[in-house]
C-alpha cells in the first residue's frame, strides 16, 4: 500500500519507482491469475490431450492414441445432435421469454410508484435460491402424484409432465425462466437507470405515446445493456445441467450437452469420449461468445462480468 505517489503514469524511460510499482502489481495479481489458469486453461489442454486417446477407466489396459476417432464417434452419433438441439432449444426459448419478462420486471422496478422494495426482494429470491432446490420445487409442483399443477382447472388430473419429450422440456424451460429472469431484469434495470429522464419529458411534450417512447428512446439506449445481458444469459443457458439432472436425468431424450458430457465422463468413466464432448462444448461456447462480441462491437466500454 506504499505506491501512493506513483499512480500517475510517467512518460519517458521507466524509472525505478515505476519498476517497483509494476513489481508490486504483478505480485498482487499473480495468485488470482494462477488460480484462474490452473482450473481453466490447463484442464482444457488436458481435455484436448485426453480426447485424442482411448481412455476408459473401466478398461485401463486398452488405452492409447486414437487421433480424431473420438470426435468422429461423437459427431456421427444421434445422441450428440439431439443434445445440441435440446440445448439450443432450451437456450433460445428460455432467453427469449426471460428477455420479455425481464424487461417488464425491470420497468416495474424502475417506474413503480410504490412497492419497489417489495418487488426487489421478491425478485432476488429466485436469483439467490439454489438451482437444484428450484428444480425440485418445480418438479414436485408438476409431479402427477403430489403436485398442485394437475389440480388446476383446464389441466388433466393425470397429465404426466415428465412422460413426454415436449412437456418435459417445457417444465425444464419454465424452471430456468423462473430462476434466471431476475438476473436479466437487474442488468436491464441498471441500463434503464443510465437513461436521462429529460429525454422522456421532451418526447412527452412533443406528443409521443408511451409505446413510441419505449421503442424510440428506451430500447435504442438500452441496447448495450441488453446485449450484455443476452450474452451472459445465452451462455449460461447453454450450460443448462442442474434442472435437467433433477427433473429427468436426460430421460425422454431431454439430454443437454452438459448432461451428455457428465454421462460419458462420470457415469461411464469414458474420459476419452467424454473429453471430446467437453472440447466440442467449449468450441460451441467460444463460437457463441465470438458472435455476441462481434454484435457488441465497440458499443459498450467492455462486456462486463457477471456470474
Amino acid at each position: 500500500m506504499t505506491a501512493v505517489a506513483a499512480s500517475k503514469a510517467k512518460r519517458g524511460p521507466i524509472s525505478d519507482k515505476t519498476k517497483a510499482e509494476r513489481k508490486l502489481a504483478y505480485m498482487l495479481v499473480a495468485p488470482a491469475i494462477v488460480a484462474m489458469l490452473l482450473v481453466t486453461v490447463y484442464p482444457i489442454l488436458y481435455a484436448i490431450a485426453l480426447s485424442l486417446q482411448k481412455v476408459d477407466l473401466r478398461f485401463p489396459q486398452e488405452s492409447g492414441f486414437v487421433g480424431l476417432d473420438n470426435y468422429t464417434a461423437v459427431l456421427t452419433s444421434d445422441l450428440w445432435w439431439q443434445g445440441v438441439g435440446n440445448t439450443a432449444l432450451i437456450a433460445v426459448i428460455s432467453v427469449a421469454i426471460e428477455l420479455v419478462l425481464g424487461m417488464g420486471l425491470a420497468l416495474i422496478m424502475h417506474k413503480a410508484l410504490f412497492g419497489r422494495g417489495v418487488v426487489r426482494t421478491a425478485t432476488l429470491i429466485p436469483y439467490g435460491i439454489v438451482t437444484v432446490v428450484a428444480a425440485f420445487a418445480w418438479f414436485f409442483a408438476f409431479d402427477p402424484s403430489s403436485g398442485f399443477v394437475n389440480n388446476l382447472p383446464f389441466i388433466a388430473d393425470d397429465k404426466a409432465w415428465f412422460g413426454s419429450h415436449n412437456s418435459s422440456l417445457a417444465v425444464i424451460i419454465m424452471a430456468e425462466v423462473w430462476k434466471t429472469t431476475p438476473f436479466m431484469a437487474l442488468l436491464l434495470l441498471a441500463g434503464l437507470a443510465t437513461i436521462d429522464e429529460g429525454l422522456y419529458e421532451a418526447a412527452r411534450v412533443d406528443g409521443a405515446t408511451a409505446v413510441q417512447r419505449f421503442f424510440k428512446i428506451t430500447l435504442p439506449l438500452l441496447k448495450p445493456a441488453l446485449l450484455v445481458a443476452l450474452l451472459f444469459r445465452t451462455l449460461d443457458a447453454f450450460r443448462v445441467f442442474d434442472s435437467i439432472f433433477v427433473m429427468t436425468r436426460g430421460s425422454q431424450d431431454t439430454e443437454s450437452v452438459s448432461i451428455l458430457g457428465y454421462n460419458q465422463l462420470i457415469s461411464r468413466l469414458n474420459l476419452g469420449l467424454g473429453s471430446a464432448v467437453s472440447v466440442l462444448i467449449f468450441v460451441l461456447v467460444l463460437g457463441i461468445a465470438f458472435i455476441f462480441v462481434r454484435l457488441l462491437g465497440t458499443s459498450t466500454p467492455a462486456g462486463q462480468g457477471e456470474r
Partner: protein
Amino acid sequence: MQHRGSKDYVKWTIAIAVVVFFALLPIVWIFSLSLKTPDTISDKKFIPSDVTLDNYTTLFEGGLDSPLLRPLINSILIALIATVIAVTLASFTAYAIARLDFPGKSAILAGALAIAMFPQISVVGPLFDMWRTLGLYDTYPGLIIPYLTFSLPLAIYILVAFFREIPWELEQAAQVDGATPWQAFRRVIMPLAAPGVFTAAILVFIFAWNDFIFAITLTSSDASRTVPAALAFFQGDSQFTAPTGNIAAAAVLVTIPIIIFVLIFQRRIVAGLTAGAVKG
C-alpha cells in the same frame, strides 16, 4: 407525472402482486410439502391439513451419519473458505488494477471475462482425473479450488468498480496529518473499501452455495458432498417411499440462509450485480 390517479395505483398493485406471487409460488409450495405427513403428501393442497416437523427431524437423526448434517457442515465450510480466499485474491488483483500502473490490465480483465463465460462441464473430466491423481478427489480443497476460480471474475469486476470510486487521496491526507501508513490504511481506506469487499463476498458465497455440477462430479461420499449434491442422491426410508417430504424439508433449510441474505443485503446484492455492468 401530475395525474397519478387511483387507476395507476390499481395498475401497479396488480403488477406487483403478480411478481410477488410468481416469485414465491414454488417456495411456498416446497415449504408446504415439507410440513405434510406421509398420508397427506399426495393431497395436492397448498395448505397442509396435518402439520408435522418429522420431515425435518429425520434429516438429522443419527448425528453425523444423518442424511443432512454432514452435507450441511460441508456446504457451510466449503462456501465460507472459498469466499474468504476468493475475496482476498480478488482484492489484491482489484487493488492493483484500480490503483497501480502496469501493462496488462485489460488482458487480465478480458481473461477474467472469458472465465466467467467458461462452460464448467468442459473442465469436469480433466479435474476429475487430476484430482484423483493428486488426492484431491472427494476433499474440501477439491471443491474450494474450482469454486474460487469460477467466482474470481465476478469478485474482481465488483471490486475494481468499487475501488475505482474510493478517494485514495484521503490516505495521503491522513499521513500528512501524522498517521502511519498502517493507520491510514486501517482507519481511512478499510472502512471505505469494506462495502465493496462485503458485496463481493455475498455474491461469491451464493455462487459456492449454489453449485451443483462440481459437487456431484468431484465428490463421492458425505466426506465432502455439499447439500445440493446430497439432495440429488437422497434415499427414502425404504425403496418404496419417495423421500419427497425430506427433500422438501432439506430444500427449505438451504433456502433460509439465502432468504436472510436477500432480506438484509438486497441493496448490496443489486449494487454488486450491476456494478460491473454500468460503471465498467
